């Protein structure tokens, strides 16, 4: 009797969940896609409104693939490369936009991070991400004390968020190296 009750209740609830899932799954997938596309457009500094993300994306960006690596190219030849790696508390995922030479950064966005709010999470602040524009990986970015960055390969760390800054720059360096070896020939 007990077993029967739990089985029946369980089946009813599971059916309800399957129903809710099939209703919401398409919208959830769409939200994820819009988020990715917005991030690509933002890294490439292509202006857009929330209402026309899809349209702006298909007009200005192409998806491409080489040697098994997927990436995006803008109309002007800039690359938009998805990156992912381990931050201090969780994955940091975002888009790194680069000049066609694959050496100079034109923009960086962060789509997902779990760093400490108010401290490590400041790597996602617009003012910090703007510092990356124009920097070069020759051969890689170097983290220096806050306010002392000088030259094309140096990036300030954030005071009070040293480890998150370090993790972030290491991710960008590693991912850049990966793209260089798989896409470098183009």
């Amino acid at each position: 009797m007990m077993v029967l009750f739990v089985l029946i209740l369980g089946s009813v609830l599971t059916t309800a969940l399957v129903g809710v899932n099939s209703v919401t799954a398409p919208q959830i997938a769409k939200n994820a896609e819009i988020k990715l596309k917005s991030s690509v457009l933002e890294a490439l500094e292509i202006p857009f409104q929330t209402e026309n993300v899809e349209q702006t994306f298909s007009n200005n960006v192409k998806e491409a693939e080489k040697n098994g690596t997927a990436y995006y190219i803008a109309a002007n030849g800039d690359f938009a490369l998805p990156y992912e790696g381990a931050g201090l508390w969780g994955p940091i995922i975002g888009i790194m936009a680069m000049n066609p030479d694959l050496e100079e950064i034109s923009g960086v966005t962060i789509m997902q991070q779990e760093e400490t709010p108010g401290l490590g999470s400041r790597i996602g602040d617009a003012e910090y991400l703007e510092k990356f524009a124009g920097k070069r990986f020759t051969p890689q970015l170097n983290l220096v004390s806050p306010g002392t960055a000088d030259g094309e390969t140096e990036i300030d760390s954030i005071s009070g968020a040293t480890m998150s800054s370090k993790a972030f720059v290491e991710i960008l360096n590693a991912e850049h190296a990966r793209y260089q070896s798989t896409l470098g020939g183009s």
Partner: protein
Amino acid sequence: MNGLWRDHPIFSLILGICSALAVSNRVENALAMGAGVTFVLLATALIISSLRNLIPMRVRIITYMITIASFVIIVDKFLKAYFPTISESIGAYVGLIITNCIIMGRAEAFYVQNKLGQSLLDAVGNGLGYTITLVIIAAVRELLGFGTILGFTVMPDGFTPWVVMTMAPGAFFVLALFIWISRTITGMESD
């Protein structure tokens, strides 16, 4: 409707504060969380109270768990699909509504022994009590931590945000302050 004050889940019974601390950093998060908990309370009250004469004694807890878990998943999917920004802020804690002691506590203490109408009313009372608390804490934390309420800038330009208010310790301070104030006002005995 005792859940609104005398048997208030957070102030009086000190239940359900775990996620209360995490999601009370902004008013919109507090509202979303409060709505989610109220929905799960109502759905749980509906199911448990309606089935109360059928639930075998020894599988009560399992019954509560699968019911609550199902509705929490529904809330999570709903937020992810239709309110993606809020889902990103509080997503991890929505799943934790299952562990929120208020819901299991009320199911066992009330819904399984009382009629549907009473149970639904109790759910609304507890849900509202929880939501109002969260919103008050969030209003203080958002105001001092970000200078805004519901995204509207309230504090003057020269204001430096109190970063501690955006983090857990700030939540502890505000919560402790409120428990102290509310108990002083009502003269509740500590236990």
